[in-house]
């Protein structure tokens, strides 16, 4: 404790280092997904479902599934009126291996939310 508070003085006197980091202008409010990030699933999922922290607009949104090499295997964004925060897509039959789910969705406040995550289909 003593050591660390002595170390504080220098920096404090050094003053304000108002370093502006380059802004990454992307929201990240994917709340949940099935399969979820880094999930291991036993069999190819029938659908991929994503839930966001706010309402999303399916017409201006896109979900894609890619294999490990980046090849797009399927895309789409299906929403249902009674679940304005969820989007899903039908998944193609997936062989065991690693896949990336990529999303670019329009949230109702007019902002684009982008991101991606990985999941794995385990060998039988």
């Amino acid at each position, binding site marked *: 404790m003593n050591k*660390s508070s002595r170390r504080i*003085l220098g*920096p*404090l006197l050094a003053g304000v280092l108002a370093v502006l980091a380059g802004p990454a202008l992307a929201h990240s409010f994917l709340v949940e997904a099935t399969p979820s990030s880094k999930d291991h699933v036993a069999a190819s999922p029938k659908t991929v479902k994503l839930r966001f922290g*706010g309402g999303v607009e399916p017409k201006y949104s896109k979900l894609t599934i890619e294999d490990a090499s980046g090849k797009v295997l399927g895309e789409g964004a299906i929403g249902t009126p009674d679940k304005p925060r969820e989007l899903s897509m039908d998944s193609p039959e997936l062989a065991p291996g690693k896949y990336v789910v990529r999303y670019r969705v*329009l949230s109702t*406040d007019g902002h684009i939310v982008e991101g991606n995550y990985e999941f794995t289909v385990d060998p039988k």
Partner: protein
Amino acid sequence: MYLSLAFIRFLESLPSALAVGLLLMPRLIGEDSGRFKIPVAAAGVLRALLGFPALYLIARNIIPSDRPLDSSVLWEFAQGTSVGKAWLATQLLAFAFAALTVARIFVSSDLLDKITLGAGVAVLAVVSVTGHAIDDGLPLWTQISFVLHTAAGLTWLGGLLGLVWWMFTAHSKPPEVAAQLAERWSLVAKAAVGLVAVTGVAMAYENVGSVPNMLATPYGRLLTLKLALLCAVLLCALAIVRYMHARPANGPFNVDWVGKVGSLEAVFGLGLLGVAGYIAVITPASHETDIYWPLPFRLSYIATWGQKPIFPSPIWWWAIASGVLAIIAALVWWTPATREKRLYATPAATIAALFCLAVSFSTEAYTDTYNDPTQDFTAESITRGMTAFQENCVGCHGPMGEGNGPMSKDLKNAQGLKVEPADLTAPHVGTHTIGDIFHWLTFGGQSGVMPSFSHVLDVDDRWDMINYLLILSSTNRSRFIGPQAMIQWLIAPDFALVDPKEEITTFFKLRGKPTLLSFARCTAAGDEKKELDASLLKAAEAAKSASVNHVTVYTGDCPVEAKGREALHPAAVEKAYSVINRYPNVPYTSEIAQAHFLVDRSGYVRARFKAFGADDGSATQFAGQAAMMANEPLVEISLHSH
């Protein structure tokens, strides 16, 4: 793209604000508004027309760039999205306002003037609805705050611009009229700025999320800049107010001077509007992922005074210095001999006192100190972190993180001094932010011995590791969990549940009611199996009769009737909870033969039962604890902050 969008928003709100200001000024002193009619109409029409480039830029931001934007695409966009609909509504209002301002050129009517002013303020109010205000994740009072904030803020700015315009074009008017206008305007301005402040705080509460975010995120830094500009504006206003008060009644009124200070105030105000326009289109700090703490220190009670520092230590000396300076400040203020200098000396000594006090609360910080985890505090994440820990960390930190790995004896720093690996189960781990730990994993530890793990563990992996370390740090205390409810401190890791309707469901969503979380391995045979089966059935029955949720993580051949809701990844859940399934003097195992955790309605682990024996009183004890917890107030646990 964001910059052009921000700029168009700035450009769009400026003419409407000016129009409102020019409508307002003559009204304040009952003056004929004839000379402002044409500029007001021009501003009104300009606002309405600027709506179109704004729509183009909004849509361009959203629709992928490979798709050309023609009028039919834009029309479809305007009708088919909430932001488009919000744009349509604001645009209709803007055109109504423009029509009214034009009508005023031909018709002189007090009623028409009033309606036009009202419409103008409405146009200002809805500026925010094409921004964050329509985020349906925001509570209603925040959404209302947005509308009031822009209405009041832009009315104030427009009024200020109108006042400056008035002052510089009023050479034929007597100074008394100018003084009267300035006085009446200052009443309106006070009310508007007050409303701006209140609604601003309400919005910041929702959109910034925490005090450090004011410096650690682009949004927060801009908001800080906005506050600084607001201070500058208020200082200008204060100067004018002081002038008005010092002026003898019916004495001369210096129109030029007030005009100049007013102009300066307006320039700061325009800067404010520019920042506000940019803030409106970027990611709010509360969901920002780009968190960068710019200072090498932070203020923390837990890491300083919370550690109960012993007397002769820097923390104490800084606090004492602060006290001495505070006394000096007070003496300077009240001692007659120093009265002349007190206006400067007392604030200076006070600032110095506050500085010393701040130093006594400061602790080291890093650029990542306030980072938010990318991985939620879930059993799945903990289990991944545990695996990574076994692969990378046990050499030094030991299999249980106690700092006693095989290599721990011979670690030396660059100076050749012996360094001991941190005991990750020590309570002081909690004085560091999770961002600090993230920083050490990314760039290497404080002592210079622990290397960077950024090439082995990606960002998500590091957060998985931190989730594991968080639960690991509670192992010492968790050994003493018994059937008697303890205080709320141990957060039950969340995990995905199997849902028959294939919905996304998690353990954490069961909160609201207490939950019995049962683990068992039904792999034995004979009497042992009978005993276990009986215990599990009794647990299920106890949960049912206490009407609490029952979640079961069973492996092997457990009785079907004893099963509750099941985990989607039972192996991961068992492993994660095994970390806190400890008992004094019992060696750790990652398997849970049998355990029943009682999780309260907020999501904290509160009690644990080894088994539900035939007549060991467990069921009775359980019923009592569950009944007590069912009536406790609900505590909101944020899985992002520990």
